[in-house]
């Protein structure tokens, strides 16, 4: 039962996440990579800025990893999130899950990213040509 939580202003590394999720009893690994898209609702995005409530975000990510290990038959999960300013193609989040069987790996990985987006206190500001907006903040 292993979990690895990481929150950093430095670029995230897929290999690091994968190494963590790997193990000889695994038959399957599922890796989710979030990337900065070049557009939202048809408007061109130039960059993103992520800020967070760091201590609470770490706690919430740790809870998600713990729940994933409880609810699914997985052997390890890594949840890495980046903060600060990101450009198109950069990686804000990586979730890597290792399991004996693929069903659990997929389910746990999807659960983790879905829950992260609901509960972890991280906020994304999108920068467009003509302004900037905190995502989802206003109706």
């Amino acid at each position, binding site marked *: 039962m292993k979990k690895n939580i990481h929150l950093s202003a430095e670029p995230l590394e897929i290999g690091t996440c994968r190494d963590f999720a790997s193990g000889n009893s695994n038959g399957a690994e599922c890796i989710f990579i979030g990337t900065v898209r070049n557009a939202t609702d048809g408007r061109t995005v130039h960059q993103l800025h992520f800020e967070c409530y760091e201590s609470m975000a770490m706690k919430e990510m740790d809870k998600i990893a713990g729940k994933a290990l409880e609810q699914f038959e997985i052997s390890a999960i890594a949840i890495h999130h980046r903060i600060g300013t990101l450009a198109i193609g950069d990686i804000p989040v990586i979730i890597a899950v290792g399991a004996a069987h693929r069903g659990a790996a997929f389910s746990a990985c999807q659960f983790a990213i879905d829950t992260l987006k609901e509960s972890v206190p991280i906020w994304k500001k999108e920068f467009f040509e003509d302004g900037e907006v*905190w995502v989802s903040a206003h109706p």
Partner: protein
Amino acid sequence: MKVLIFGAARDIIGKRELDFPLPTNPSVKSFRENIFKEFPELKKLNALAFAVNEEYANDDDVLKNQDVVALIPPVSGG
């Protein structure tokens, strides 16, 4: 009480941190009413959650002077 302010809420209040008086009835609900009175623009947010000492709080939770409260506008990580 120390209040931490993030994201869109910070743009409204203009500060990262506030010292805010403990409500007479020291529930999270009363705190919300008081902070909304002080900064009515907060009502324009899609939603506003509160954390007390780094945990999401409910309306009925009781606040103490040494608690750290945080204003949590809709999160958008990932």
